[in-house]
């Protein structure tokens, strides 16, 4: 007697089984929690800030805003003021260039203690140097400028040093990472001959990473031109100082010329960096 035929379990249903869409909220849905937290943060922010929308959107404010914007025209184009703006622009450029240069020098000085040079390197100075670099980096240029104004006085010198402080934090870290990631072969070959650490760095590691360090420095210079343009609003020289000075005196024509110069400078830098990148990547 043949065994009773069992129903064939492997046959598939003719239609795909009907499934409900997932519920809108379930405790395991990370995106739901993310959205809920985001909503809570946004609502709490708007609720606690007591923003003066009424004042901003009232007819009165619209009128004063219109008057304010109207005063920007025409920009002041008298030759002596344009000369002042040109001096401010040159000051901005000089601040950013010198600040970046100082930062690159500081970064090069700090790169040896900040990196683990070979696998057996105890690198005792690495953690404290990285901490210093992080501290330098996490304080924005403008805050550095505010702090340095007390020691260096009003003017572009404080701005230059502020840029140098923040940028040396950024560049030091980038340099250290470039050095740690450089191919170890040439350095190990010299080290095996008993060459000292500094000579190994100068003759093996630095020539390898120099193009990368240059490109980091140029990139930071580009950023610093933008930063230097506004740094002056706390009194640290350049176009920003002219801007806050004339805006404080409500000389709107002059303010608008300074604003135009600032935007032109930034646009010029953007265009130059775009062109340089295209030329180099070709």
């Amino acid at each position, binding site marked *: 007697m043949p065994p009773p035929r069992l129903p064939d379990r492997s046959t598939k249903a003719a239609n795909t089984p009907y499934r409900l869409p997932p519920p809108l909220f379930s405790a395991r849905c990370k995106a739901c929690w993310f959205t809920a937290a985001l909503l809570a943060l946004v609502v709490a*922010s*708007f609720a606690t*800030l007591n923003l003066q929308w009424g004042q*901003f959107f009232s007819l009165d404010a619209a009128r004063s805003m219109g008057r304010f914007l109207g005063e920007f025209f025409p920009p002041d184009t008298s030759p002596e003021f344009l000369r002042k703006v040109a001096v401010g622009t040159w000051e901005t450029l000089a601040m950013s260039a010198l600040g970046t240069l100082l930062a690159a020098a500081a970064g090069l000085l700090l790169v040896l203690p900040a990196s683990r040079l070979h696998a057996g390197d105890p690198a005792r100075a690495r953690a404290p140097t990285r901490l210093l670099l992080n501290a330098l980096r996490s*304080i924005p240029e403008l805050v550095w400028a505010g702090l340095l104004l007390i020691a260096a006085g009003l003017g572009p010198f404080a701005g230059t040093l502020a840029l140098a402080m923040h940028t040396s934090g950024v560049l030091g870290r980038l340099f250290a990472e470039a050095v740690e990631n450089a191919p170890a072969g040439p350095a190990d070959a010299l080290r095996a001959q008993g060459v000292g650490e500094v000579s190994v760095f100068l003759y093996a590691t630095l020539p390898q990473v120099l193009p990368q360090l240059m490109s980091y420095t140029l990139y930071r210079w580009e950023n610093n031109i933008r930063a230097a343009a506004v740094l002056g609003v706390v009194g640290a020289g350049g176009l920003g100082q002219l801007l806050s000075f004339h805006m404080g005196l409500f000389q709107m024509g002059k303010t608008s010329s300074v604003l135009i110069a600032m935007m032109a400078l930034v646009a010029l830098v953007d265009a130059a960096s775009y062109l340089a990148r295209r030329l180099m990547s070709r």
Partner: protein
Amino acid sequence: MSRSPSLPAPLRDPAWLGRVFWTSACLVLLWPLMVATEFRPWIFVEPGNLKVTGQFLRSFLPPALEPEFLWMVARESWRTVAIATAGMMLAWLLAVPLTLLSTRVLSVSALSGRMAAMPFALRQALRWLLIVLRSVPELVWALVFVRVVGLGPTAGVLAIALTYGGMLGKVYGEILESGETHATETLLRNGSSRLQAFSYGLLPQNAAELTSYTVYRWECAIRSSVVLGFVGAGGLGQQMDNSMKMFNGGEVLTMLAVFMLLVALADRVSAGLRKALG
């Protein structure tokens, strides 16, 4: 070694002339920069200046830790985060419609050959608007709005909203256009509306990248909302500016520490979220 042993090694660096020339050329070029920036490091060691700086630095220790002051710092830190969040929310509200209107992928006329003239002009105009919004630094927007709405967080929120609106709009557009647009095009060709094509084709494809960029910008907004406080837009920056002007080093030190903690925390949160998004 291919060099024959009879040839003696050069006694001095054969490239020394070039090196000396380029070093002195750099120094000559550096001189005008130093003049323009009034580079005078010796003013640090002038006796009058040294005294003031020394006093200020000495007043850093001990850091101010009175309960009321700490409470005030906590409140202002929250305001800093709130200014950044509210500004980002408004920037997002500004950026989303501008992105939808300006992205080339959602153009119906571009499906068959060139985009028609009017839509092209509209898209180009919106792109220029985004560039203008983005190219004015937020600090300048804040200076302008402080004049209009007075000191306080409103100016900071508006400044962040405008600058970051421009940035978000531009980068959202780039993200949408850089991906694979086949699904969206198919939807559009088969008669779906632009909004449908966006929400069923473009958005699911790019949602993770868009969110990740927005979170990263939120982190940047926290940093810049501290800076905005220096021109009177409220938050931690404004208090820091006040304490610096009063030479109260202890308060400055506490606030700097809190600020660094805040930035590190935002960095962690944003990095974690972006990692989860993949």
